[in-house]
């Protein structure tokens, strides 16, 4: 049985080449949710870089209007990626 690793990457725009500003990796195992770590290192600088490493995008961020000049809103654009691992991986 293969299982799904899930990686959230937040980027500064909808472009696959945009800089990553946040991430969360959910491993397919019984565990607590990932949390903020003092020594965390952003694993990829762009979604494209993650694709090159074998990740597959399963959710692309929606277009946002972003036309309110008075607000700086939600943090980045959220891509969700997956990578399947087998029992023996």
């Amino acid at each position: 049985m293969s299982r799904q690793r899930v990686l959230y990457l937040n980027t500064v725009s909808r472009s696959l080449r945009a800089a990553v500003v946040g991430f969360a990796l959910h491993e397919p195992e019984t565990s607590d949710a990932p949390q903020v770590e003092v020594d965390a290192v952003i694993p990829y600088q762009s979604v494209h870089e993650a694709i090159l490493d074998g990740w597959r995008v399963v959710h692309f961020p929606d277009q946002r209007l972003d036309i309110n000049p008075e607000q700086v809103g939600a943090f980045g654009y959220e891509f969700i990626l997956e990578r399947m691992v087998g029992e023996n991986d």
Partner: protein
Amino acid sequence: MTSASNLGLLNDDQVASFIINGYIIVEPDLAADYHESIISALREMPENPGGHIVEALPEIIGVLEDPKVKGALTSLLGQKYVRDPGGHIHMNPPLTRGQPWHQDERFGRGHQDRDVDHIRQLMFMYYPQDVDAEMGPTVLLPGSHRRISSPESMVTLVNLRGQAFSIVKAGSVLLTHYDIWHAATGNKSDRVRYMIKFPLSRTQENNEPSWNHDPTSLPAVRQRLDGEHPSLLSRNEYETDHALRVRTWNNIAGTAAMPLQSGEHLGGPWPVSGGATTASRQRRDMPQLG
């Protein structure tokens, strides 16, 4: 009357830093045994006193009255700031998990209308013991106090570029803009981490800067407000953010307000081959992250 130097007022550069980043760390002039006595008192408390911190721990007034702390608060909230009702003692015992990212009370109890271009309310966080990386330091996202985000929109966010941790020595006070994104992180150590938190508010608008202002520093302040970003931003966020920062300065600077329009951020080195096409774009794409 306490003189400006004795009061420990901030200077223009420090106020600009606060506007840009949304926080400042103050180290009060209190002896180590003062902080140790606070820890002892906290350990002896049978339960959390909730918002009745000063009644349960009257010694805490010593930190609130420290000249450096008062100077920073006066600088950021004006001469007649007040401590609001409430507050909270955070006890983070060993092996606790971290909190999710949040803004305090941003969506409820009449807080929806808080200004993103002003400093009306601060959060005071006092750490009576050293806090190292293992002890669950508070994490905050510099510059996030101008982002209005619901808890639901933050729920998938975990590690963020530019996140900063309150790894501080005993007695330090972290003053943050009330709206900064923050969270307690997990305590991986075998020690308890205490933090005492109070909200404080401005009660009147400034007619002039309430900090140690020097008019000759305005060009340098403007350069920072226009071009310095603590995190990566999209283009529209970048433009919005630096306008809001100048407006924040103007809302607290009284007679030292500056024009909203400026070309300061357009200046800088010529582009290099293979890089960004303008200096401002280069600063936006490659901010000096703390």
